[in-house]
């Protein structure tokens, strides 16, 4: 293209140490991108069959519709998308918000890392994580956080709002990171290493910690974190 500034117009295939990247150009409409990807897949069918690759948006603005269409195309050729990456920080944030994995190689140490936005308060939305968080993993959510799975010792969970764990909490959970002492932590079982709400910290007893073998809720009462069993009213009997 002989434009004032050179715009990328072709889809490129790059081999890196992390595997194959499909780099999408900025300067063309999506229909052209899709056609080019189809062509690339056809010309190197044997190479791509069964492969996993990174969809690299580089400087192109990502859209969910585009990603879905590309995924559909790649799926039909037996190619799996490992991650979707972008160079522009805002774009990357958007991908993260859509729940996409943005890089390969490193395990998801930080599944959803979103910078605290300061003035933006916690609204009704929540980040949803459906896996057990093992030692060394951490999750950070700007608002509320729901985890379906356990939070194991050595894992760290941080949220701007409430944290709900449908599983056992054995690691460290921090709710109300921005200072909201009204935030709560609820779990099927609370046997945490440490709980934090706003600036308050409660740690497990050093010896003979008696854990509640029942669903429980932690909240701040009179400047202290207290854990209470979640009582389900028994209506029969």
């Amino acid at each position, binding site marked *: 293209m002989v434009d004032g500034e050179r715009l990328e117009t072709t889809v490129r295939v790059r081999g890196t140490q992390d595997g194959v990247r499909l780099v999408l150009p900025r300067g063309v409409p999506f229909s052209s991108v899709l056609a080019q990807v189809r062509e690339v897949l056809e010309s190197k069918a044997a190479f791509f069959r069964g492969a996993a690759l990174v969809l690299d948006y580089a400087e192109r603005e990502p859209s969910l519709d585009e990603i879905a269409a590309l995924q559909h195309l790649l799926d039909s050729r037996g190619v799996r998308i490992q991650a979707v990456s972008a160079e522009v920080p805002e774009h990357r944030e958007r991908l993260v918000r859509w729940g996409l994995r943005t890089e390969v190689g490193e395990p998801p140490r930080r599944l959803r890392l979103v910078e605290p936005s300061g003035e933006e308060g916690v609204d009704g939305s929540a980040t949803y994580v459906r896996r057990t968080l093992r030692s060394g993993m951490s999750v950070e959510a700007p608002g509320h956080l729901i985890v379906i799975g356990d939070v194991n*010792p050595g894992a760290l969970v941080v949220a701007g709002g409430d944290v709900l764990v449908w599983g056992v909490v*054995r690691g460290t959970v921090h709710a109300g990171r921005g200072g909201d002492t009204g935030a709560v932590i609820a779990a099927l079982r609370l046997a945490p290493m440490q709980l934090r709400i706003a600036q308050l910290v409660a740690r497990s007893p050093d010896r003979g910690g008696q854990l509640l073998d029942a669903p429980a809720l932690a909240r701040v009462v009179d400047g202290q974190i207290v854990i209470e069993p979640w009582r389900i009213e028994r209506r029969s009997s």
Partner: protein
Amino acid sequence: MEEQQERNGRVITITSGKGGVGKTTTTANVGAALAARGKSVVLVDADIGLRNLDIVLGLENRIVYDIVDVVEGRCRLRQALIRDKRLSTLHLIPAAQTRDKEAVSPEQMQELCRELRQQFDFVLIDSPAGIERGFRNAIAGADEVLVVTNPEVSAVRDADRIVGLVEAAELPPPRLIVNRIDPELVRRGDMLSVEDVLEILAIPLIGVVPADETIVTATNRGEPVALDPQSRAGQAFRDIAARLLGEEVPFQPLEMPDGVWRRMLRALGFGGRA
């Protein structure tokens, strides 16, 4: 033994995160047990720089070439394969002692595993401790992973980290070996039980190996206990091998420590064989 028939062996990595929990002993013994069942087995020592597997097998004096020589093309694969002195179907590719983990790349490990699986039924890779390059090399070509842990909080913590990394590498969920469990300590509540460990790790169990002082002496002599029919730990390793072969083997009861057994047998009039 020079049959040129192509196999499609299984590549199984034995790893743990924490050091000293018994990875190398497990690799040697599970390998020996599989070989004793007639399977062709190669053990790969991926702990480059801290070579040990050869010692546990008593094969140190036979090493000429090692894994780094193979990947750097200084010798052919066949030349680095050491045949065990007891079992003709058991082989070892030793680690290099004078190099470090960077000497081999994950891609080279994958290539090595590809070649080995064509020649052997089982390729067992002894992973180094840690979560860095050595570990990544060790799982690079693996189909399955076995995680070894001890019933100790720190070992379980590291095993949990490893399970997360294995999952992130998109391998099937690893299977667990709880090594060095002492039934007496568990009974007194002074040791984590197998159930405690499973509750945290939540992965399938493939073996429980009792603490057994004969392992230490056997290991120092370079004799895998899996070949000793009297050894309880040896039986546990043979059971793991059988489970890898797809057999349903019940887990040995742990509640009855050796001493009690012997005393009971003696009381019942059975001779006092050790």
